[in-house]
């Protein structure tokens, strides 16, 4: 593990899911920041500058796509890797997300946490 812990921002409205993701990544040696909607996510991103973001789509207050768009408009948010982790398999949304530079689009129920960690590491160039 690198000395400087990588910071992961999990934007997820479902508390149990957010918790298990956090536990998993803490175990994997990440520093984990949590947000329960897009607006919070943006807020935290501006303050903490995470290395990577796991982003849900359907959330109250501000959904994932809206947050993504706003994020990409920020100077610091232009290049940060974003992996969409959602249960919504809608082509239109997938396309929209890809347009705004998400690095992967994962369906929660089809992916083990272990595999999600692998994807994150891959995007951070840790593997």
């Amino acid at each position, binding site marked *: 593990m690198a000395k400087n812990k990588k910071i992961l921002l999990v934007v997820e409205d*479902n508390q*149990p*899911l957010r918790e*298990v*993701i956090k*536990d*998993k990544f803490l*175990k994997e040696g990440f520093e984990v920041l949590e947000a329960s909607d897009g607006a919070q996510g943006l807020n935290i991103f501006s303050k903490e500058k995470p290395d990577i973001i796991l982003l849900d789509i*359907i959330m109250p207050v501000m959904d994932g796509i809206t947050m993504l768009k706003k994020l990409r408009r920020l100077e610091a948010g232009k290049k940060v890797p974003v992996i969409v982790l*959602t*249960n*919504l*398999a*809608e*082509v*239109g949304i*997938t396309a929209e997300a890809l347009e705004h530079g998400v690095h992967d689009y994962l*369906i*929660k*129920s*089809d992916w*083990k*946490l*272990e595999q999600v960690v692998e994807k994150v590491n891959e995007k951070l160039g840790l593997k």
Partner: protein
Amino acid sequence: MKIRQKLLIVVLLVTVVPVFLVSFLSFLNTRDLLQELALSSLNVLAEFKEGQIFFYLDTLKTRTVDFASDGFISDSLEKISASGSLDTVDTLNSHLIRNKKILNNNLLNIDVLDLNGNIVGSTSVERIGRENLYKKNYFEGIWDETLVKDIFLGEDGRYHLEISTPIQTRDFPKKTIGILVNHYDALLLDDVLTGKLVLELGATSQLGGLGETGEIYLVNEDKFMISGSLFVEDAIFRQKSDTYPVRKCLEDGEEVSGMWKNYLGVEVLVSSMCIVNGNFKWTLISEQSVAEALSPINRLIDNFLIIGFVGTTLVILLAFFVAKHLSKPIVKLTESINKVSGGNLSVKMEDINRKDEIGELNKAFSKMIDRLQISAKDLEKFKFAIDNTSDFIAITDKDGIVLYSNKAVESLTGYTIKEVKGKKIGSLWGDLMPKEWYKELWDTVLINKKRFSGDLKNKRKDGKEFIAGLSVSPILDNAGEVVFLVGVEKDITEKKRVAKAKTEFVSLASHQLRTPLSAINWYTEMLLGGNLGDLTKKQRSYLKEIYNGSQKMVSLVNSFLNVSRIELGTFMIEPEMASISDLVQKALKEFEPIINEKNIDIKYNCVGKCPLVSVDVNLTNIVLQNLISNAVKYTPKKGKVRIKISQKNKKLFILVSDTGIGIPKFQQEKLFTKLFRADNVIKVNTDGTGLGLYIVKSIVDAVGGKVSFKSVEDKGSTFTVSLPLVWGKRKKGTKRLV
């Protein structure tokens, strides 16, 4: 031009024209003949009259000579010449007067001249002692001849014809001692010419044939008439006749015969005779007006006209009847045809009972109408159906101008058929789509000449927007040119809304179902991973069951999602380059645990080189997953599964065979139906969904492939899928199958 008129013209040309031609030619002939005849009779008459004139003059001469040989006259003249005795003069005068009466009523005067030309004795006493005006003539070398003088007007106002002859002594040798001059009345010549005198002289008949306008007259050297005219009173020495025949006679001494103008300017046929004497030149003219001479020809013309008129009338009538006979049925037929073309198909054909071509034509037309009536009925039904069908159907020309619209246009757009007809299609309610969209439409149907299908947004007359499903087909002629466009349009707003609602529901439902499943998955994963401390064997085993159950739920949810998308037709096809070998390997990897568990012998190979393909990776994966899953699931432990990839004729063949339980023969035909599970399968495995092969077949059908199988119960099954090596145009659905 109508048949009747044509026929008339033809018949007239054929009959009347030759008749008129013949008439005209015979008219010309007859006229020449008549003219010739008239001229020759004029000529004969002229010659005859000339002869009479000569004869008459000779008679007068003879009489004069006889009278001059009277001894008393010569004796008296000798005495007067010798002594100049007045008594003797008186005696001579009395003798002359006495004899004048005896000689001829027409003898105007008798003069006796001495050798000096002086009148020494006369029936007119007052003339004695004068000089005879013409003495020169008598004495210049023509002593011994009997002469006729040209006619002149005497002092007494009468016309004189002088005849002179020498008076000689009684004793031989005879010696001329004076001249005897007889003055005859020149009007006698008139009588000769008219024939009056001829009768007197004993001829049996008058030579006629001159009709009412014909006359014979004499013209003297000064071109004055010296005999009477039928038409001019007191013509003698007053009426000039300066005509061609007269001039010809005077100038050239030529006698002519022909047609000229006479002294009155009337066109006449003339025959002339030149009567030449030492003292005068007369022209005898025998003439008759052309009008009269040729009058028989007028009768001929009249006859021709009557015959021509009657003939022509008959011919016209005949032609008229023939034409009517010919054209009447045609006119009737035309009336019927006009009614038919006017749209009245219930026309009852007139029964034209004829056995000629017209009858045949009528029969043929009757048949045609029958046929037309049948097809018109069909067409009516057809039109009724189209008029009243619920989809909006329009026919336009190639510029998109509406030629026909059915009633559905009103319910769809709110505009009436009247408002739409003649306008460019869609101009009232369209134009809400991007320009490129319409360009693609017109390019497809007009340039590529293919059918165009698409959904578009339109605006009703009341301003409400709606979504329409549109299909436009070009109708081509034999040369392949676009003649019409047929458009079918229907309101699919509701359909779209329902579809969208369904899609949203499915999306949301799957999302909602997956979220708790994800929680179960991940928490058991964490527990099983030992992240929360060691687990007892029993605990581990329980957790695994929870995990497996959850996994099955996930795959069930995915299947349901796929089926609903297939049925809504909203799944998308996005071909991309891929290696089929990679796709098979990836699919196999997912089944590694169960393969290892059941110790199944599984192999795959490509016949020849493993091909590169252009397919939708996601859909191909679903197909492979389902086939491999079934093969592995229903093959007993230590069974065999073989996957063979090959290509032929631009097609990719995927063969998956197993040594599994197979499909009962009696259920094989239901295999691809939704939710179907074979009896033997249900016994072995209770958690299948009956959706897998249904999804496979739906995908394969959608991309133009085929799926088939061979199976023997308890022996195994072989599934063969053929897919295009290169999948066509991407199908824009809205959902990705998962």
